[in-house]
């Protein structure tokens, strides 16, 4: 049986990949990278999920009732990294647009 969250993660990743490969607009490529990142993050955070679990903080609850804290830490870190990557890519896109006047990867060479 495949859980729905893993299926969703796979769908997000394959969507992102297909957009990154086939689309020619730079903004769409940035979005595709972000969608792949979100898919991976969804996968990571659902790894540590326990139905009816409680927050992993300093309490009396037994170990098995808590959701796994490690995956949440991983996801938060990877969200921060994703943010940095997307911000840098967008600033590259702004500069490329400033130099070429278009966002299309195919037309860029001709315009110069």
């Amino acid at each position, binding site marked *: 049986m495949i859980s729905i969250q893993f299926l969703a993660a796979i769908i997000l990743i394959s969507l992102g990949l297909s957009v990154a490969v086939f689309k020619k607009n730079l903004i769409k490529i940035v979005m595709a990278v972000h969608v792949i990142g979100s898919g991976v993050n969804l996968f990571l955070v659902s790894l540590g999920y326990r139905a009816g679990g409680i927050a992993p903080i*300093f309490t*009396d609850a037994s170990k098995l009732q808590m959701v796994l804290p490690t995956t949440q830490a991983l996801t938060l870190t990877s969200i*921060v990294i994703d943010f940095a990557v997307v911000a840098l890519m967008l600033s590259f896109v702004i500069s490329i647009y*400033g130099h070429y006047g278009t966002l299309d990867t195919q037309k860029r060479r001709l315009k110069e």
Partner: protein
Amino acid sequence: MNNEYRASVVVRTVAYILAAPLIVFGLYVILHGHLTPGGGFAGGAIMATFIALFLVSFGRKGAGSLHRNLFSVLESLGLTVFVVLAFLGISNTFFYNFMVNSGHLFGRVISFGVNPGYLDTGGVIPLMNIAVGLEVFSAISLIVLEMFTYSREDKND
């Protein structure tokens, strides 16, 4: 003044109203980072939303009143404080939490079990959260500011 970008009075009024809550909420998230979900990055990002809102409502005039150098110095400061705090635990190991349970700042000794969430715990973790919050706030503000001025200049050409 006429050809200058200026948001409508609705946007500006909402910006006035939201300014204080945004900053306070961001500070809350940063300070409670060791107890509740959130922390330096989330809180810093919330505070930086204020800068984005400020730029949206006041345009280039607003951007002119923000100092880029101040932001980049604050960014370096936040990161430096973070690494220096990690260095301070070096008598044991790098990143050692030397302040927890010490009885001093953020060092309240608590017994095992459920508690209401004392703010005065966590050792260096709250301090690191503050440093990270400062860094993220100034870094995101800087990014937003740079992107904003660049796209504005482009439009006027």
